[in-house]
């Protein structure tokens, strides 16, 4: 996904003079050719993430469209007040593009992980959040964001599904006959499909949890909802509760545990510890559905 991001954004720089890229050293090598071609619009501020976001706000105020990129904990967590004030409060937009996600950097430790990024953006007004589950979903999302000035977060991951599902709506991947609906966000789809392979449940997928396709969910008439999200567990509980406030339902929210994972290992190890591998998801889902 990272390579796709670099290629797409590099192409956008050539096509649209509004496009700018703001970096804080992360991925600067990958953008070196783009920087040579567009020295005024590919801006590497060094290891200065507060400035990176402030620069994006200033660029946007002059009419440009900045793509701001770093590891998720640096682009979102570290610069939270800049995101709130230098973008939101100024009524300015930007496209934040992160890598690392919740535990891609499993071997690096918690300093390079951000399970809370989507929850943090949920405290702010007007953010669209894309969590692609396949590299082929990435170019369309980035290109669509070039044509407006809204605030967009694209959360890239080294975890991915076998197939791409373009479109920002909630897509039914497998239809069951009961009222049980498993909603999966981004790269956890394959694990969720495997976990529910022989269960009579509907599996729906989205790579755009904000704004969440509440109409799509309501159309499925769910009596039970299981949210499977690759970031902090319960992040979407408020959204689901509001979407179904007039419908009797039960809900279960699965995601990355709130307990800090201090062990290293691979992303697969972390997925297992958080109960987000196929076996863990199956355990939680069957227990919930009874």
């Amino acid at each position, binding site marked *: 996904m990272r390579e796709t991001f670099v290629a797409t954004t590099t192409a956008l720089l050539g096509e649209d*003079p509004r496009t*700018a890229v*703001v970096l804080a050293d992360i991925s600067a090598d990958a953008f070196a050719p783009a920087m040579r071609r567009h020295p*005024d*619009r590919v*801006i590497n*501020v*060094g290891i*200065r993430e*507060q*400035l990176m*976001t*402030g*620069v*994006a*706000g*200033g*660029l*946007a*105020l*002059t*009419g*440009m469209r*900045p793509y701001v990129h770093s590891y998720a904990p640096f682009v979102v967590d570290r610069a939270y*007040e*800049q995101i709130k*004030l*230098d973008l939101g*409060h*100024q*009524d300015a937009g930007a496209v934040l593009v992160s890598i690392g996600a919740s535990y891609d950097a499993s071997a690096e430790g918690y300093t390079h992980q951000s399970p809370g990024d989507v929850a943090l953006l949920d405290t702010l007004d007007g953010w669209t959040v894309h969590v692609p589950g396949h590299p082929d979903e990435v170019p369309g999302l980035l290109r669509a964001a070039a044509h407006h000035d809204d605030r967009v977060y694209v959360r890239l991951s080294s975890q991915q599904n076998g197939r791409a599902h373009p479109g920002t709506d909630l897509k039914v991947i497998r239809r069951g006959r009961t009222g049980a609906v498993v909603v999966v966000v981004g790269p956890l789809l394959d694990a969720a499909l495997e976990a529910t392979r022989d269960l009579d449940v509907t599996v729906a997928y989205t790579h755009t949890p904000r704004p969440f396709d509440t109409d799509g969910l309501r159309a499925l008439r769910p009596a039970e909802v299981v949210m499977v999200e690759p970031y902090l567990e319960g992040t979407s509980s408020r959204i689901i509760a509001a979407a179904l406030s007039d419908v009797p339902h039960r809900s279960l929210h699965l995601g990355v545990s709130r307990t800090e994972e201090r062990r290293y290992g691979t992303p697969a190890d972390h997925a297992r510890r958080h109960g987000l591998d196929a076996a863990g998801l199956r355990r939680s889902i069957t227990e919930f559905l009874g």
Partner: protein
Amino acid sequence: MTVTAVEPELLTRITGDEKHSPSAYSTLDILWVLYDRVLRVSPETVDEPDRDRFLLSKGHGPAAYYAVLAAKGFFPVTWLDDLAGPHSRLGHHPDRVLIPGVEIGTGSLGHGLGLATGTALGLRAQGYDEARTFVLLGDAELDEGSNHEAIAYAAATGLPLTAIVVDNQSATHGWPGGIASRFVGWGVSVVDGRDHAALEAALLPRRDRPHVVIAVVEPKGS
């Protein structure tokens, strides 16, 4: 209109008394010189893409800022009468969405210099070579670390940007070596913040490198 004409009436009108808070009053002469003699911006050109930009980073105590903007016709003088009232567009910190002529909404310290850096980069990338970017900070505000990210970056890249630091010695621990020593790689002018001719001389020349004008005024509380 001269500052001596605008100052007592409008400042009194907005503050409601003759005793203006130091944070409001410390910037009055600088703001007047900027809007009267330096900036290429007016109520008619407030949305022009190649206008000069003035960013008030020191968003607290904006009474002088509001008084100058009203005197220059960016918004009606009557707006000054209900500061932070339920129907007022003018708060204790300015909001760019609500006030014509205000480039950024500030209040939380340490945001203006980063935004100004992006503004200068954006103007340069779009070929608006005549447009200048100014940002005003307080000396205590410089304590915020975010400013130092911008100071170092602007110096390293030779970014055309003019910062103004109003020094009324309000930083809790002071500035050993002086404020100028914190702007390594910048051009520096230290001037009397009440001297209009000196302020104009420091602010008017166009420079293709970052420049800081340190405007010294009477110490806070004096």
